[in-house]
Each structure stands twice: as C-alpha cells, then as structure tokens.
C-alpha cells in the first residue's frame, strides 16, 4: 500500500529536448526515509531528472512511482498533492508576502479555491507553522517581506515551506548554493531534521555537506546512470574517476 510504503522508483526515464537527449534510460530506487545525493558534472542531467519527477518537464520515456502510485507526467500541482515537494536551485518564495504569510500558504489543509474562501485563522496547520519558524530560525522576521530576506534566509524559508507541506518525497536542488560556511552548517541542521521522516533526493556539489547528510550517492554522467553506493565506494570507483578524468575524482 502507498500509505506505508513511499519509496521513490524511477524506471528507465529519459527526455529528448527536440534532438538533445538530456537524460536517457535512467533508473534508481530511493528507499523510504533514505537520503540520496545525486552527483555529476554540469549538464549531467541532475536537475532535468528532478524536473521530470516533479512534473516540470515531461519525460519522453520511462515511468516514475511513489510506492505503487504512478506519477509520470502528471501536472505539477497533482504530483505535489501526491507527495512530492521541490526546492529549487534559485530560491523561490513569495517575495511580496511576509514570512508568516509564505508559511501560511504552505500550511493550508486544502488546496482547492472553494475550500479556501474562509478566514486565514481556520483550516490551517498553525502549530506546524510555529514549529517551522523555530526550525528555520526566522522567528524574529515573521512580519518581514520575503523579498527583504538575505539569500541564506530565503533558502531556509523555502525549506520551511517544504517542512510544513510534509511531503513523502523531498527534492532538494543545491540547498547550500551560494551560502557561507556558517549558513551551510545551519542548513545541514535543517536537512538532518528532515532525514528519516521523508524520502529525500538532493543535488549538491559541496562534498563536506554531502558527507554530512548523504546515506547513498548516485552518480550521473551525460544523462546516464554511472554509479551508486556509499560515499567511500563512490570515491574509490574507477568508473567515476574515469568520468571525472583529470580532476582527480569527485573530492
């Protein structure tokens, strides 16, 4: 049943952008509660893969499942309702709303228009909202516009939206991009808090961060599956070294 099993299964997906095969015949299974990191050079297809999982890009081959439920090529909001949350590479929040209003949007119990014609004080997960403000360290900025937050704070706010949304599967696209060491540390605290409760797939280049959070790593190369394993295995893998020829491996 999907209720108690929500691993993410990607089965031979691929996409062809009018002649350019960005991803081809890629498969992986991420177990429930696992934290998986996707590695690969620029253009390896990591973000495109995430786009296909969350419905932003229509795949041209293969199928994607959460547990037993197929989500291949459904509209983005439908996939989101089925339990996939996405954090974008460029932090994406509601800039002209306050921090609290941003989180309120994510905390709504129902997503349809007609169910939401009532007051903001009702049918909203208020307890979660307060908890999340603590977790993402923005309690002192609740009434500030999201557009006035710093880069790091914006990233945390977006993570906060996902925490409240509480999806089965979380896709994180470079959650620490552009962050200072200090901010990265805070971010790994937030991500570690999500671990275990959600199935997480993350794209990340910061190897210190990857060591901190990853259970298993999947390496992509030119749109294809290259290797998979624990971080030690990956660092030793000959295939990975060959793909990163000249750069002396991924570390």
């Amino acid at each position, binding site marked *: 049943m999907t209720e108690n099993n929500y691993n993410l299964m990607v089965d031979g997906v691929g996409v062809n952008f009018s002649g350019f095969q960005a991803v081809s015949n890629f498969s992986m299974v991420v177990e429930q509660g696992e934290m998986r990191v996707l590695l690969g050079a620029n253009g390896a297809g990591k973000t495109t893969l995430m786009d296909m999982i969350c419905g932003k890009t229509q795949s041209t081959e293969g199928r994607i499942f959460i547990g037993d439920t197929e989500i291949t090529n459904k509209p983005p*909001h439908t996939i989101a309702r089925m339990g996939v949350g996405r954090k974008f590479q460029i932090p*994406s929040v509601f800039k002209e*709303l306050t921090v609290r209003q941003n989180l309120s*949007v994510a905390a709504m119990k129902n*997503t349809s228009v007609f169910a*939401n014609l*009532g007051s903001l004080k009702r049918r909203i997960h208020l307890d979660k909202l307060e908890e999340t403000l603590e977790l993402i360290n923005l309690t002192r900025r609740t009434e500030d516009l999201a557009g006035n937050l710093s880069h790091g704070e914006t990233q945390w706010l977006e993570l906060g939206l996902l925490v409240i*949304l509480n999806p089965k599967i979380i896709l994180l696209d470079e959650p620490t991009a552009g962050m200072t060491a200090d901010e990265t540390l805070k971010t790994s605290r937030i991500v570690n808090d999500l671990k275990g409760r959600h199935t997480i797939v993350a794209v990340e280049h910061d190897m210190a961060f990857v060591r901190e959070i990853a259970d298993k790593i999947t390496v992509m190369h030119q749109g294809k599956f290259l290797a998979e394993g624990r971080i030690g295995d990956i660092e030793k893998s000959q295939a990975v070294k060959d793909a990163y020829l000249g750069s002396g491996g991924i570390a």
Partner: protein
Amino acid sequence: MLKHNHFRIAAYAIFIVTVLSLPAFFDEFWLNRASKYLVYGMLGVAISLCWGYAGILNLGQGLFFGAGAYMLGMSLKLASPTSLQHGGEGPVPDFMLRNAEPGALTELCCINSGSYLWLPFQSQAFGLIMAIVLPVLLAFILGSIIFRKGVSGVFISIITLALVLLVRLLVVDAQALTGGFNGLTDLGWLTFGGYEFDPYSVATYYLAAVSLILTLLVTRLLVNSRAGLVMQGIRDDENRAKYLGFDAAAYQTFFFCVSAAISGFAGLLYVVTSEFVSPTFMDLAFSISMVIWAAVGGRGSLLGACIGAIVINVLGATISESEVFVESWQAIVGLFFVLVVLFMPNGMAGVVHGWCRRFITKPSKSDIGGQPQ
C-alpha cells in the same frame, strides 16, 4: 499588523460615511453624476482585484462591463414606452421597427431572424441575472483557455485587448439585434421589488452607493481569505505555488471571474443611472482608462483603486467643463497620470500607506521590513 489594520478600517469607514452622506449636500442632478462615478469606482475595484492581487492585467475589462450593460439594457429597452408605440402585441424595440423588412410581423418573436433572443428579456429579473451571469460565463471560458494553456503576462493583456475589440465589432455589426452604433437609447426605468428607480433620485444614488460598498467589503473579505493569500502567492511566483500543490489556473480563473462579475454589476448599474447602452463601453480607450484609474489610485489597494477611479473622473469632468481647459483637459489628465506613475509607483494608496507606516512603526535596527499592501 493589528495597528495597520486599524488604519485600514478607519479609511474604509471614512469612505463609506462620505459616500452615504452625499445626498445631504447635493441635489438629484449632482447625485446622478456622483452615482456614475461610484460605478467607475466599482471598475477600479475589479481592476485592482485582477491586476494588483491576481497579477492579471486585463486590457479588455470593458468587455465584461459592456456585457453587463447590454444585458440589463435589453430589459430596460423593452420596458421603455418607445417599445410599445408600434400598435401590435407586446413590446418591440423602436430600432427594430425602423430596420424591419416590409411586411415583417411586428412582434418580438419574429420581426427579424434573431429577435426571439430578446423574448426572455421582457423580465427585468432575467436581465439583471444575465448582467452578472454572462460576464462570468465569458470570463470562465476565456480564463479556462488562457490559464490552462499557461498563457501569462503581456500575452493575456494582448488577448483580452483583441477580444474586446472583436466583440465591439460584432455588436456594432449585428445592428438588427443590438442597435449597432447607436446602442440602446430611450431606456425605461429599472423596476425592482415594486419600486421604480428614477435615475435622478436619491434612491438610485443609494442603489449605486450600497452596491459599491458591498462590493468593496466582499472583495476585501475575499483577498483576506486563505484563497486571497494563495492568489497573491501565485502572482509572486506561480511555480512555487504549483509545487506546493495549488492549481494555479483554477485560482486565476476564479479571480478573473469574480473581477468580471464586479464589472458586469458595474455595467448594469451604469445603465440604470445613465439610461443608455453604447458600444463605446467596449472601446479600447475606455478599458485602458480603467487600468489608468487603478494605477493612479494604487492597484495594490482595493479602496485606493476605487478612489482613484472616482477622483480622476471628477477631475476630468471638472476640468473639461471650465472654459479655459475645454480643449486641453485630456492632456492635463494624461499629465497627471504620468506624474503619479513617475513619483508614486504604488499610486495614491502607496503614499497613504507610507504615511501610516510612520505612525505605526518606530524605526529600530531589527525592523527593516515593509508591510503587505
């Protein structure tokens, strides 16, 4: 937040009291003009909701206004004494008689090939209902197509702009049914609940005033609701909202329809106060004017856009009637618009918001954020 709300409540209260107390100071002639300005105020609210809150810049709002106006106008035309002068059975609009082919039966069912469409409009209740239903239906069809197809930004403006011109053309062309260029004139009075609304009466002014106040309050509740917040989120970042599970197109279509309903309502009230319907309601210039009113008043504020619409129209009417400016008043109103846009990007409401903020927040190091509009 709470204190900010106090200012807002005060602003609404002042506006409502002012509008309701006008009959104490003006005679019926001026009240008739004032009620037209209030109708323009409703259009300001519709634009602010659609543009400021939902991020949809509709350059063809006149389509919904015109649809509402024609629907009630047809009913009021049939209620006019001029429609009963032909001597036959039942009412027939005078322009249909003038255009009728020789020997045609002078009855509404069959005086020309499309005149049977007018039959249900003998009931004013039908005209009133259709004045809201038709704009909403048009908005729903249009919205379902453009928002589902992911059309956004300037392309929506272009499509709506083209559409209002197209419909205007069709209305003018179907002269036998719509009165063509002349529109519908010599209309009867609205009769509702046994009461006749004389356009030059205090009652008709209050009809417009109460309609505007209710529209403002209901729209205010809507933008303050959860759906209103989601809509503003979609305006800021449509993708973010989608990936939180919200069907952006459904929200956009809904708010587009509400905006159309308000415009249709404004259209029907305009007909009640002005006693005519004209295809000029669907002129491009009129639809663009509405956007300018909202921009001057402040599109991010429902009350601001409403007051903006009223102020510009009062200003325009006053200037155009003084002998000095009789030729140049449009240039003056245009200049006023340019100045507002240059120096007050959030319109008059933005300036007032700024003043209020000085009273609420004592500047401190930790507080550098703004208030939502």
